[in-house]
């Protein structure tokens, strides 16, 4: 039985590889572009390996920056697969069910990027094995980073397994075992919530950083994840509809957009709540949010970005809330871009930098990512997009039934 499955797996891999190399011109152009970016990023990273993290703009006063900002944002994107899983499986809502797989593939790609950003940020990547449980020494349960390691890799493994299993089952024309898949999928819901909560907690637990030490940080993480992650997916779904024969119903897309609108509303409310508490109480802890929104002691670097984030988020909220603009493809896609930009700022640099500026002794160091950081980040994003593209190149034909065994694989003997 095992031998049979391994042979099928081999055929699956071989067939998948063939698919990867058989595409349209635009596919090749896109992959080539991504590979070029990966190359550029790799060169930049090799420079960073050679000369050290001093090639970034991070210094003792602002010891986390662009890399960790991107990491935090992408954890939210990874959690967004939940958006699709909840209605699809919990409510048995058919229009979404078929495309949930794509959400999980997106989660995998996002997680790969997350792990990439962590790897490029640590000072001793050659010592990464120290963080592997049972191999190194993981400070569980005390350190939230330890929780993050377990949660992210667990979620990656879970999604990876579900996706591969579903695809392999579809390829071999065997029905997937509901008894296996459904519990795992249901497990992925709290796991998705957990990865984002754990990431929020790793900032939240630091009393040294009052900007992060606010009780609504974790809820804000969740709401911003819910409104930004699916945005990428909505755009991608429209691209897939055009480029392949994949059938995605309009109402599925509009439903996701509607759910996102509610998440955006709550997100805006929580942001306003945070701002009220700080500005009204006006204690010394308000210096951080002041630095972000109005500038502090003449330092106003982040202010335009902060307000751009608010404006984009508000605009996106309205576009998604009003049914007329939600169901208009132009405004819908505009809204997707706007909310993506808004949350990218809010959960990226808009979270990390004000948390660390002014620093614990009141010093302000204006952090601007260096060219090394931009190039390495571009490379990692390219890796993520590449993973997503290549995965879909195999997954979509399987979902359409175009890539599968000629006959259903023989049922295993009982």
């Amino acid at each position, binding site marked *: 039985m095992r031998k049979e499955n391994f042979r099928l797996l081999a055929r699956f891999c071989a067939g998948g590889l063939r698919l990867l190399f058989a595409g349209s011109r635009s596919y090749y152009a896109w992959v080539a572009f991504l590979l070029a970016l990966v190359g550029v990023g790799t060169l930049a990273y090799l*420079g960073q390996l*050679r*000369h*050290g993290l*001093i*090639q*970034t*703009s991070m*210094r*003792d*006063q*602002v010891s986390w920056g662009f890399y960790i900002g991107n990491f935090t944002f992408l954890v939210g994107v990874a959690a967004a697969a939940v958006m699709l899983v909840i209605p699809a499986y919990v409510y048995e809502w058919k229009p979404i069910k078929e495309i949930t797989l794509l959400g999980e593939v997106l989660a995998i790609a996002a997680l790969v990027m997350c792990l990439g950003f962590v790897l490029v940020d640590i000072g001793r990547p050659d010592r990464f094995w120290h963080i592997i449980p049972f191999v190194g020494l993981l400070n569980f349960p005390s350190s939230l980073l330890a929780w993050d390691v377990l949660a992210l890799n667990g979620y990656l493994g879970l999604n990876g397994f579900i996706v591969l299993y579903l695809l392999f089952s579809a390829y071999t024309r065997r029905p997937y075992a509901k008894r296996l898949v459904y519990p795992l999928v249901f497990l992925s819901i709290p796991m998705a919530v957990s990865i984002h909560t754990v990431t929020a907690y790793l900032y939240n637990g630091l009393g040294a950083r009052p900007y992060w030490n606010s009780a609504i940080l974790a809820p804000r993480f969740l709401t911003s994840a819910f409104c930004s992650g699916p945005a990428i997916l909505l755009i991608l779904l429209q691209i897939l509809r055009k480029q392949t024969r994949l059938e995605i119903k309009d109402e599925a897309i509009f439903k996701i957009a509607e759910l996102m609108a509610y998440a955006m509303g709550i997100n805006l409310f929580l942001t306003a709540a945070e701002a009220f508490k700080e500005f009204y109480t006006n204690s010394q802890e308000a210096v951080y949010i002041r630095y972000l929104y109005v500038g502090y002691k003449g330092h106003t670097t982040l202010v335009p970005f902060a307000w751009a984030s608010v404006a984009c988020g508000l605009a996106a909220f309205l576009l998604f809330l009003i049914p007329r603009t939600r169901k208009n493809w132009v405004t819908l896609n505009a809204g997707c871009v706007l909310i993506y930009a808004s949350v990218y700022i809010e959960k990226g640099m808009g979270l990390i930098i004000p948390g660390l500026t002014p620093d614990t002794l009141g010093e302000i*160091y*204006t952090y601007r990512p*260096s*060219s*090394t950081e931009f190039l390495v980040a571009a490379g990692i994003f390219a890796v993520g997009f590449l993973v997503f593209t290549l995965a879909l190149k195999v997954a979509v034909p399987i979902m359409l039934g175009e890539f599968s065994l000629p006959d259903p694989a023989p049922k295993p003997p009982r």
Partner: protein
Amino acid sequence: MGIRGGDWIRRQRLGGVPAWGALLAACFAASWLGAQTPPPRETAPTAGEGQPPGAEEIQVPPPPFTEGIFPCTQCHDGKTVPLNTRPRNLVDMHDDVVLRHGTDRWCLDCHSADQRDHLHLVDGRLIGFSESYLLCGQCHGDKLRDWKVGVHGKRTGSWNGQKRYLLCVHCHNPHSPRFAPLKPLPPPVPPKEIVPTKGGTP
């Protein structure tokens, strides 16, 4: 007040021996046989030879005299330089000493007039220069208390062993004890000036 104190000291010098001094003289007289010739007035021995009542022996490095200035009796031997106990600004010698210590003070408030190699306490007892902390401690008692425990002043040596003490005067110029401001060492390099070295590009 200083003048009054000076008057009082002069009275002690020129007047009769105070009552407690008589007691001490009697004690010394009782140990006449086999003992050294008792000094005509009560003196506190220098460090290491016996202590004024209540003081414990504290090892200190020698006082930081200006070169050649000690012993004072090189000049103040009672003959070469005439004794003038009138408070005044000095012009011929020691005019480099700027006295900025409290108000209405002058030299003989601390320096013994006729035993120039000694200082004297308020009650007239003479002490050596290496016990000057007793003198300072008369007015600065809280500092003396802290110093004896090891909490006042520069601390070197061993936290679980013998403490190394310095005299007050090793850090505080007794004539002008307030610390002069000093030039600070350079400030730290700000983060934006910490840049890659050896060919790295930002």
